[in-house]
């Protein structure tokens, strides 16, 4: 534009000569991956990141290749004479009430429990972000429609809903169905937290600045508002990953969990519950596996949250 116009007619310096434009250009035109690259630089310096990442990696390897860790079949040759038995050389954690190997069942149950947690979290996060983001940011009738849709799902408690869903699909009790049953009624929690945070962030100075610069509303949402609102979502999400694995156990307790032939931590915890007083070890080991896994994810969530938040980063 300035090429066609003689510069002498301008009282203001041409745009390309203005240092301000250069600064703006960097801000607006740069890829948002900058945020993530910064975050990565920050994370890799922190021991908590490496510890949690290592545990998660280990859990993933166990989930994919259980046979690397145990040669004992988890469900065959369960002898009642071994019921709640003490550890022996080959069976390092002892036996369950049915006389199955505790260690082997934990190892083979890893993939089930992990899958339930991850599928539920993907489901709740995707749905939660979509609903919460648009509801909080655009407000008005869209907010009403989305929030009320969330209310419909959320006012039915997800455990009761899961009981019904698992009953309806009792012939297809597998990891996907149980994850769906838990997740489909749990996402409004994420949506509500995100919506509240966005309501707060969208009135911030940097959002107004972006608006003043003429950035489109959707672009502001994706580039500025969402990344700055995501921190509580990450906290809720990492915790709900653990909660989902535990919910699977509760559903087993209520009698609508995965069939016993499917190894899962929840299944083992709920079955060991009756022997809480006589054989607590059968309860403790699967609970420990669950705790360590959940802890790793929460720690990772904390690290990511801190890394994504430039203000928190600047403080250190």
């Amino acid at each position, binding site marked *: 534009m300035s090429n066609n116009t003689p510069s002498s007619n301008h009282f203001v310096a041409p745009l390309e000569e203005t240092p301000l434009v250069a600064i703006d250009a960097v801000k607006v035109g740069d890829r948002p991956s900058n945020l993530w690259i910064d975050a990565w630089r920050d994370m890799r310096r922190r021991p908590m990141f490496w510890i949690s990442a290592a545990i998660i990696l280990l859990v993933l390897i166990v989930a994919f290749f259980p046979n690397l860790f145990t040669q004992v079949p988890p469900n065959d040759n369960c002898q009642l004479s071994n019921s709640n038995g003490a550890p022996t050389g080959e069976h390092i954690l002892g036996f369950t009430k049915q006389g199955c190997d505790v260690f082997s069942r934990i190892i083979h149950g890893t993939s089930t429990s992990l899958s339930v947690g991850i599928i539920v979290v993907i489901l709740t996060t995707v749905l939660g972000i979509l609903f919460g983001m648009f509801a909080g940011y655009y*407000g008005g009738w869209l907010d*009403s429609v989305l929030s*009320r*849709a969330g*209310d*419909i*799902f*959320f*006012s*039915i*408690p*997800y*455990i*009761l*809903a899961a*009981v*019904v*869903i698992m*009953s*309806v699909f*009792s012939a297809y009790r597998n990891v996907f169905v149980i994850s769906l049953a838990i997740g489909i009624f749990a996402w*409004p*929690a994420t949506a*509500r*937290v995100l*919506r*509240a*945070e966005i*309501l*707060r962030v969208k*009135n911030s100075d940097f959002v107004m600045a972006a608006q003043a610069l003429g950035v489109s509303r959707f672009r502001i949402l994706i580039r500025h508002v969402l990344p700055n609102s995501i*921190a*509580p979502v990450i*906290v*809720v999400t990492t*915790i709900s990953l*653990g*909660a989902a694995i*535990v919910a699977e*156990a*509760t559903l087993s*307790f*209520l009698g609508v969990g995965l069939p016993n032939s499917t190894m899962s931590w*929840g299944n083992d*915890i709920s079955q060991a*519950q009756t022997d*809480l*007083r006589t054989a607590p070890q059968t309860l403790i080991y699967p*609970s420990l596996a*669950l*705790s360590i896994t*959940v*802890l790793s994810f*929460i*720690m990772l969530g904390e690290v990511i*949250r801190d890394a994504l*938040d430039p*203000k*928190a980063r600047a*403080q250190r």
Partner: protein
Amino acid sequence: MAGYIFRRILQAIPVLLGTTFLIYFMVFAMPGDPLLALFGDKTPNPALLERLRQEYHLDQPFIVQYFLYLGGILRGDFGTSFSGEPVSAILARTFPVTIRLAIMALFIEFVGGVLIGLVSGLRKGKLFDASALVVSLIFISLPIFVIAFVGQFIFGIQLGWARTTVSSGAPIQDLILPAFVLASITFAQIVRLTRASVIETQSLDFVRTAYGKGLTRRRIIPVHILRNSLIPVVTYAATDFGVLLVGATVTEGIFNVPGVGRTLYQAIIRGEGPTVVSFVTVMVLIYLVVNLVVDLLYGLLDPRIRYVK
């Protein structure tokens, strides 16, 4: 403000229809004839079964049944349960108990969670922060029924501090132990949310300004940091109140609390359509009111959020 409240009340109608329809559809879709279960292991006579089906409208198609119950509710007739008790009486008996329990649990988790979360956030990375993480993790990673059984065993039987189950009428002192058990699940969520929010608020300009002005921590922490950190926490606590109102199925069962969670669970398992729809209706109404109150609370907590449009 009044207009906003009015709009929200109008919006409650589709939510109410949607929720009752959804839950009723799901219960209807549950395989199995609820009447057969009434006969235990014995097989009833077909003619008798047919008559019972007609009495409970179970011979009608789904949509007819749904509108029959819904129509009844609009006329104030909530139907009767299989045991012959009017559902309205069941509602009047169970909701006060559960509301009492939910408020107690919410109070415990909110006060405890916010305090610990606040200190964790202020002392990020310190010993307290780390131990709070570990403790809250223990509660997250144990299923509620384990916490409940252990709590009942220790405090009810071994120490005798609390009654093992809730006695008739559900007095407050009997509800303390179940309330703590209920609070333990979401306690961790509140701690983590408060902590995250406090850390973020601390780095905001107005907090630095406050420090710069020379205000004491004693004043800055409650007035500037805490107040501004509460929004996500309050939202979460409010949604959790809804969960507590009906999600206490397991806890209510273990402590024998004659509340909504236990009754609704039994009604669902037994396939008692009228009871389920009535409970969900009341439940949703309460839930919507709570949410409305929370949305109004935002405005108080954060003046930047306004509803007058």
